Structure formats: structure tokens, C-alpha cells
């Protein structure tokens, strides 16, 4: 507690979370909402968004869109800005994987991952940045990954997109810092999710061996980092990447 107000209070702030129908995105949306924010849920699966919106109750809007479709990305930005009455907090969380060893990686698998994970971030952020600059407040939070920094065999496309996100964030952070709009990344390590749930015991054992905390992280632990970066208290943080990985990589 800080005097008579709670830290990390987001009351009145309007947030848009992409990929909110997935594990980590859902936790981010829940956490922002719990801090008082009005939350826009983007996703591809409408029923999942409706279910989550129903659970959260008030202060929720849903925005289904396909981020592989450039026109839909632009429309998403316009719609969210209009319907929420200005997006203060943008969380670019949506992402896809199309894993495969590099020598066998197809153009399609490369293009699809870069389009959704990086190009849609550029386009959506461009739609929403200028209004943030005008209002002299904004929080852009990009969900990258530990592998964007360390690399990972079988994920050249995914790692390229996530590393690209970090460079993108640093450049934008420098351009718009004077407008009180911050741009940061959160880089999760291994997080309990549908994706990691598919790993077999042997794979899990190997991964645990590399994590000092000997456990996977939770979506809620990633969401806490997002809440911090979205808050007024994080006003002097920009161009940074917060690593939430149980000590798996200390960078």
C-alpha cells in the first residue's frame, strides 16, 4: 500500500489484450481486469472470448479478429479505439508456432509465424500509438519469449519473430518516450499451458533440469509482470524486457 491508494491500480484505464482466448492471454486479461481496468479481449475463438467475458462480468468488450488478415488487424485497432473510447494499454500477446527444423522449414511456415507474431504487432500498434501520443499516456506491452533471446532448435521462425519484437519495442520506445508512452516486453520462459502440456515426461525432465526453480511458471506470474508495466508506477520503465522464467536464463 502506498498512502491512501493501492499500488498498480488500473481503474479507468482501458486495455486491449490480443490472444486473450489462449492460456497466458487469458491470465493477463484477468489480472488487468482485477486491477480495475476496462478490458478488450481479442481472440479468434468467439465462444472462448464470450465465456471469459461472462466470467469477468462488467468492464469487458470482445473483439474477434484474424491477425493473419491485414485488413482485420487495422479494423481491430479502429474498433477497439472507438468502442473502448481510447486504448491506454495495449498488450500484444497473440502468437502462433509452426515448428520444424530449419533445413526443412517451408516459406509458408516462416511467413505465417512472422505475419501473426510480428507484422500484426506492427500494424496494430501503429493504429493505436498515435492516439496514445495525443493523450500523452500509453503502455505498450509486447509478450515475447525467452527463446527470442536464447534461440531454440526447431523454432527459427518463432525465435526470429520474438527477437524482432524486442528490437521493435526498443526503437518505438525511443521514438515516443517524450509522449509518456512506454514500450516494454515480457519474456516468459516455460509456462504451464496447452502448448507445454503436450510435452512428454522425458522432455519435461530435461527442461526442469535447466530451471533453477525446478518448476514451470504460471500464466498468472506472467500476468503480474504485465500489470506492473501497465501501471502508473512503471512510468520510468521503457524499452526493457522483463524475463519471467524461474531463472532459466539470467539476462
Amino acid at each position, binding site marked *: 500500500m502506498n498512502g491512501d491508494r493501492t499500488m498498480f491500480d488500473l481503474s479507468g484505464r482501458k486495455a486491449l489484450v490480443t490472444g486473450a482466448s489462449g492460456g497466458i492471454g487469458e491470465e493477463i486479461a484477468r489480472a488487468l481486469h482485477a486491477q480495475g481496468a476496462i478490458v478488450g479481449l481479442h481472440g479468434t475463438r468467439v465462444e472462448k472470448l464470450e465465456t471469459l467475458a461472462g466470467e469477468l462480468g462488467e468492464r469487458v468488450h470482445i473483439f474477434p479478429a484474424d491477425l493473419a488478415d491485414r485488413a482485420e488487424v487495422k479494423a481491430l485497432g479502429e474498433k477497439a479505439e472507438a468502442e473502448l473510447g481510447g486504448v491506454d494499454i495495449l498488450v500484444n500477446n497473440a502468437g502462433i508456432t509452426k515448428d520444424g527444423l530449419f533445413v526443412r522449414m517451408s516459406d509458408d511456415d516462416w511467413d505465417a509465424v512472422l505475419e501473426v507474431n510480428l507484422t500484426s504487432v506492427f500494424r496494430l500498434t501503429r493504429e493505436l500509438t*498515435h492516439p496514445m*501520443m*495525443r493523450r500523452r499516456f500509453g503502455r505498450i506491452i509486447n509478450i515475447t519469449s525467452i527463446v527470442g533471446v536464447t534461440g531454440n532448435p526447431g523454432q527459427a521462425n518463432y525465435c526470429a519473430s520474438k527477437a524482432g519484437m524486442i528490437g521493435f519495442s526498443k526503437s518505438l520506445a525511443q*521514438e*515516443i518516450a*517524450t*509522449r509518456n508512452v512506454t514500450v516494454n516486453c515480457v519474456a516468459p520462459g516455460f509456462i504451464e499451458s496447452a502448448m507445454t502440456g503436450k510435452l512428454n515426461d522425458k522432455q519435461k525432465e530435461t527442461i526442469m533440469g535447466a530451471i533453477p526453480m525446478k518448476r514451470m511458471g504460471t500464466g498468472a506470474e506472467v500476468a503480474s509482470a504485465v500489470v506492473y508495466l501497465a501501471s502508473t508506477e512503471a512510468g520510468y520503465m521503457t524499452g526493457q524486457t522483463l524475463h519471467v522464467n524461474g531463472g532459466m536464463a539470467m539476462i
Partner: protein
Amino acid sequence: MSDIAERVKKIVIDHLGVDADKVSEGASFIDDLGADSLDTVELVMAFEEEFGVEIPDDAADSILTVGDAVKFIEKAQA
């Protein structure tokens, strides 16, 4: 002053938060009105929106004063 000049002036006053009497035709956005490079980009975007014209980057680079903006827009709309 023409209608275009009045509208340009209003955008500049609103955006940069400067006094109306400082916004003369020869006033330089950066040197006289305290704009930074990001402000000049935002002004160009505001002019595009207000007047429904497209201002390409090389043209935008040559719009340094209020008068430059008015001239460009008058030409574009002619």
C-alpha cells in the same frame, strides 16, 4: 488570411499549445514554435486528416513553416 491558413493555424495552436500571435506565416515549427521532430510528423498527419490530402515524406520534409504548409495544401487542393 485564407480559410486554409486559418485552419492550419488552428491545428498548430492546438497541437503545439502556443499563443496564436506567435503563429505567423513565416514561423518555423521547430525554431520558433518549439516543435520536436515527432511534433512535425504529427502536424503533417493532422493536416492530412483535416484537408483530406496525402503529404508524401519528401514533401513533408520541406514543410518547415506555417506558410509552407498552407502553400502545399493550397496546391494539393487546386
